[in-house]
């Protein structure tokens, strides 16, 4: 049974139990902790949301409730998730969060999926004094807004691109071609990337952008193949990263290093690309070999949601939940106290130590991962590496 139908039957069972037990059911019990959030179950954001974010929320609630509930300063209280579909629509997102914060007065809110949605919700949360710890927001502009109640656990473009460029330099890459998507994500990353490449004396032989929803990039890749670079850098998103990888393989475009940014760390990338995924690098920051905590998280995710977590933002989503959990345990549900605690504390998470400098998380460095024998190994920086990079990439 997949997660949604599980939730459906769970909802039905709960409703039924509620109806049956309503009269006279007055056992002294701590009130539930109400947690509100929206995720995109329909519309263009659904793919990302349903891979990376919502499964973590469901897993978190299920795990905590099985263990008696969320620890609120020593008292265990069950979690009640109020999760609705936001249809990938900004106005619906804003309206839903206003409802959570003002009409329902939930105890906690969890962030929606994606940079645009976070831009829309962050000021609302800030206004009503609800802290948001976001795993899937990636924009320097958002960080620069310096909203006191807003935190991001994901590495931003600068550290991510710096790790990539350092890795390229370490493998004596002299020339690259770059493809990037026409949106804020693509442009901020390319903006960070270009000066870093220049500083290391790496030449950009060809640079092309493409729009959301592109279905064929073979002609672009043929041009890049003709330029014969040492490395290919794709500032891509799923499903374009599948398209780029698949078509590069078809036309025999085989640079020493092949990097596609987001979605490369998704398990479906490995399933979809098969052997073609071997040796591809991308944005990532963990795998189950990294630590005991990471292994435990991985196993729980597989057990409950029946699918593997992605090797990048999934763990950042989990870390965000851990941060909230640890904060509530320490200071309770007073939101001002929670915010202050999050802003100044160093947390132990699935990704190691995390702490915030303003909005941005600074404990976890930028990293590069690579598929090797079916696992997404961290290959850069050396201090975090779980394996050595395999260069050159071989297509088979």
């Amino acid at each position, binding site marked *: 049974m997949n997660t*949604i139908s599980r*939730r*459906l039957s769970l*909802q039905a069972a709960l409703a039924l139990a509620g109806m049956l037990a309503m009269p006279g059911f007055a056992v002294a019990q701590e009130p539930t902790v109400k947690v509100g959030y929206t995720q995109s*179950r*329909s*519309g263009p954001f659904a793919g990302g949301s349903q891979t990376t974010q919502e499964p973590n929320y469901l897993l978190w609630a299920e795990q905590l409730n099985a263990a008696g509930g969320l620890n609120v300063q020593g008292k265990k209280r069950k979690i009640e998730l109020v*999760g*609705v*579909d936001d*249809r990938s*629509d*900004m*106005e*619906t997102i*804003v*309206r839903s969060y*206003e*409802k959570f*914060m*003002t*009409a329902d007065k939930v105890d906690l809110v969890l962030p929606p999926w994606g*940079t*645009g949605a976070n*831009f*829309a919700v*962050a*000021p609302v949360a800030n206004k009503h004094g609800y802290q948001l710890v976001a795993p899937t927001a990636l924009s320097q*502009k*958002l960080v620069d*807004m310096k909203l006191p109640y807003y935190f991001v656990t994901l590495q931003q473009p600068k550290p991510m691109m710096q790790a990539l460029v350092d890795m390229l330099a370490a493998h004596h890459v002299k020339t690259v071609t770059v493809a990037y998507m*026409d*949106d*804020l994500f693509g*442009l*901020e990353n390319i*903006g960070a990337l270009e000066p870093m490449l220049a500083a290391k004396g790496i030449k950009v032989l060809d640079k092309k*952008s493409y*729009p*959301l929803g592109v279905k064929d990039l073979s002609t672009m890749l043929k041009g890049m193949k003709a330029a014969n670079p040492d490395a290919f850098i794709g500032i891509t998103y799923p499903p374009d990263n599948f398209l780029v990888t698949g078509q590069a393989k078809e036309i025999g475009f085989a640079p020493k290093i092949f990097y596609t940014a987001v979605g490369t760390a998704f398990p479906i990338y490995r399933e979809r690309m098969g052997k073609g995924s071997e040796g591809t690098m991308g944005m990532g920051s963990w795998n189950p070999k990294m630590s005991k905590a990471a292994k435990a998280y991985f196993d729980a995710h597989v057990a409950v949601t029946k699918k593997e977590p992605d090797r990048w933002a999934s763990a950042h989503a989990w870390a965000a939940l851990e941060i909230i959990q640890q904060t509530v345990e320490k200071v309770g549900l007073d939101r001002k106290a929670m915010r202050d605690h999050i802003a100044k504390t160093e947390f132990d998470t699935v990704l190691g130590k995390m702490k915030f400098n303003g909005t941005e998380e600074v404990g976890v460095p930028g990293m590069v991962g690579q598929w090797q024998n079916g696992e997404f190994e961290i290959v850069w920086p050396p201090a975090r590496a779980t394996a050595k990079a395999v260069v050159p990439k071989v297509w088979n």
Partner: protein
Amino acid sequence: MKQDNVFLVAAALATLLLAALPALDAPFVQSLALSCLMYAGLAVSWSLFSGPTRYLSLATSAFFGLGAYCTAVGLAHLPWPLVVIAGGLAATLFAFLIGLVVLKLRGAYFAVITYGLGELVKHTITHVEKTWSGTVGRVMTETPSSNVVYWSVLLIALLAVVTYVRFGASRYGHALRGIGIDEERAATLGVNPMRVKLAGFCLSAWFAGALGAAMAVRWTYIDPNTVFNPFIVFQTVLISMVGGPLTVGGPLLGALVFSLLSEFLRLSLPYLYMILLGVLLIVSVLYLPDGIAGHDWRAMCTRVARRWFKAAPAVEPPHE
């Protein structure tokens, strides 16, 4: 026009009540009312042109997005009312330019080309932004309060309603209906179809642009994909059709019913609401083909009453 006066009084009362809503200090109710008003304004202004002429315009998203972009660019330099007006004017200008050519097309051709032009504008803006300013999308940090946005949208929606009624009763309104029935005949009767259509199209565009301009500040960050979202025009057409675009009450009722219903279903049945919404849409077309407002409720009630209280007639009255 006695009925019109009754209607205007009712509209004024409703507006006063809605204008006082912020006093409740209930942000969720207010933002629900806000999106209801936004779609009411969009649907009324869409019906203003597309109702009588039966020209199925899919350019609403383009108008809305242009207005929103005007806000993103102008907010720092102009006072708020001017920003909103300018957003509307940008849409009107665009409507005028494309109207000169696309209003020569009819039926599905017109629908597809207006949609295509919307996409064309969206991608042109993406391209221009990227080439000239090296970024896509705009962040707006200094924004007017949510009450100001709410009142602005209310005012625009009210203006749309008043315009619908006034324009419909004017010479232009009659001419538009004439064109909807038979364009060639209207032309032989001394109507200049192009001029009349252009006037209606541009007027309807202003409201969509102004609404886009007013709403843009709600989302802090806008990019072409959010404000030129086809979702906006689809929802607008849906609301107008479900309500019935031939009277002003239609799109208003449509916006009210559709917004509240879809929100209620979304929040109470988070996994199944789309299926239910889809079924309701199909059922509504089958049983209320002329929209909620256009439906002959009295005849339906009589028919139902007859069927329930008297013996069923031996032969069903024929359909055609």
